[in-house]
């Protein structure tokens, strides 16, 4: 469902070339919940941006939901993002002037979906995250946990093939973080494929599988075993990694 093979990505300036991803390969099956961990600057966010088609990469290949998306132009990338990928960000990234309903509506608008269908999808996504009674609230009138649940509803409303979560609990207290993780697990249980970037080993343990990225490469990889929960995490340099996470 998701397969990156030998992907490399470098950022260049006149003086400097920084390799963010080096021959990065990862395969994620449909319905998997994968946690990607690694220290700051290891390439986690670059991986997520590439996976989400927010950035291009220099070489390698990337197949998503059976489609080779390596060399798509900007329009096609926008379309794939809109139809197949749902994003959950650390800082929620809701539009402050739009109410809950309209925030969830944003990606559906770019699909040119009929109003009735949009309404149905929005209501059902908000039902799922328990916020159907807050349709007309602005983000500023919600708690951090509720805002993240709105963001999850926005990601789910388009029924994407892949959910990408970037530190989804990074801005939440432990109670709300737990609620959001429960929700992600519930969504995964319904068949959604989730790739989550986190620096929190506790959260990572709740995923089916962990992969660790250091210096733009996967340093630990364990194939998906559907019934093996919780996932085991192997950190190659535990002390150093713990010290630099975040």
């Amino acid at each position, binding site marked *: 469902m998701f397969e990156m093979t030998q992907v490399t990505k470098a950022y260049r300036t006149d003086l400097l070339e920084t390799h963010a991803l080096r021959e990065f390969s990862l395969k994620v099956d449909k319905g998997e919940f994968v946690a990607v961990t690694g220290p700051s600057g290891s390439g986690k*966010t670059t991986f997520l*941006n590439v996976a*989400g088609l*927010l*950035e291009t990469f220099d070489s390698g290949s990337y197949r998503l939901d059976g489609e080779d998306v390596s060399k798509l132009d*900007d*329009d096609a990338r*926008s*379309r794939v*993002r*809109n*139809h197949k990928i749902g*994003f959950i*960000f*650390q*800082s929620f*990234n809701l*539009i402050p*002037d739009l109410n809950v309903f309209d925030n969830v509506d*944003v*990606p559906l*608008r*770019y*699909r*040119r979906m009929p109003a009735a269908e949009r309404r149905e999808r929005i209501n059902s996504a908000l039902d799922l995250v328990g916020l159907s009674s807050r349709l007309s609230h602005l983000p500023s009138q919600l708690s951090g946990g509720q805002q993240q649940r709105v963001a999850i509803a*926005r990601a789910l409303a*388009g029924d994407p093939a892949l959910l990408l979560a*970037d530190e989804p609990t990074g801005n939440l207290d432990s109670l709300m973080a737990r609620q959001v993780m429960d929700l992600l697990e519930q969504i995964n249980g319904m068949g959604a494929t989730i790739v989550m970037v986190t620096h929190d080993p506790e959260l990572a343990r709740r995923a089916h599988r962990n992969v660790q990225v250091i210096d733009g490469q996967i340093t630990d990889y364990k194939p998906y075993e559907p019934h093996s929960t919780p996932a085991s995490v192997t950190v190659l340099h535990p002390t150093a990694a713990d010290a630099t996470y975040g």
Partner: protein
Amino acid sequence: MFAYDLRLALDSMKRHPGLSALMVLAIALGIAVCTVTFTIYHAMATNPIPDKSSQLYAVTLDTWSAERPYDDEKPENPPQLLTYRDAMFLYGAKAAARSLVMYKSGALLLPERQGVKPFNATLRVTTHEFFPMFDVPFQYGQGWDAAADEGPRPVIVLSDETNDKVFGGENSVGRMVKLGKVEYRVVGVLQPWAPSPSFYDLNNGAFEDPEDAYVPYGWGKAQELPVYGNTNCWKPETGEGYQDFLNSECVWLQFWAELPTLADRDKYQAFVDNYVRSQKAAGRMPRPLNNRLYDVEQWLDRNEVVQKDNRVLIGIALMFLGVCLVNVVGLLLAKFLNAAPLTGLRRALGASRRDIVRQHMTEVLLIGLAGGGLGLLLAVAGLAGIRTLYNSDFNASSAERLTQIDPVIVLATLALALLAGAVAGLYPSWRIGRTAPAVYLKTQ
């Protein structure tokens, strides 16, 4: 999607009301200045008789002095008016499909209607072809015929306004009206008719009101009706009587010929040149052969109805609009780039570059439209100000005519505002459309 873009545009304008108002005002000021100058230019430059302007010719002969040209600044221009002798010869020769001789005059009109005071009526003393040649529309009756010119007979055609004033707007054909000591029989009443510019008589002002009434040329001559307008002489004339004036080298008559085709025009030019050659042989017209036929547009040009200053003003107005637009571009860039994180988010959620450009262009066009509307109001106020300014020391009706906003100007203003908005918004919208979605997501 347009409704969604419109909603986003309105939300964005509401989010930054001060900035939006500043942009609307900048466009409005530029549009208002352009609209005022365009309105005046449009009134001056409009072809007053588009269907026939290339068939009607003002006929001029260089009958001026051997020592100096008629116009020192433009020596190639012959006098605009003809002598009585030359006009009569050309008219009598009937070498054109139609031709006419005329001049402006005036007399005291004494209405019989109670409560209407006598007033000085302006008259056009003309041969009968005036009405069909210039497509003058009649409300009642018609013009006179050649017999009335030659008779001559005291008949008169009234303007719509004069008929309203003297006869309360009734059909006055057959009724009598007294000018000076003479009673004229009304044969026709015009519909409202005021070509602008008044191409047929530019000697008396291109934006003057048309005359109050029209009388046969022959009758005017018989009554020795005075000339209201230019009478130019290049040598001292010794005689003092009216007949001496008619025999003089003074120019004072307007002459027009209707020449339907270019071949007719060339033929008429040859005819006029031959006539002048014969006059030279008889010892008149010492200047080199320089007889010109001007069609209506050439005539307006020759008489500088649209002055160079007006064209310069148009240029300055457009430059001012340009300066306003540059400011708007700066404000838009600041506004759009300030909202770049939200744009990055929309891009991440699936908006294509085209979606982003369209969303922002909708906002820009909305600002342009608001600027156009406000600019139009400011222009109306500005033109009213100009009318007030000129009402006191200038011909009020000329100012009125030059400062009228017509539907063409309104539409042109709104189109210009939209175009200005589009021009101002194109770069900022394109620039924001290039927003890389990943850049702002961490900071949003």
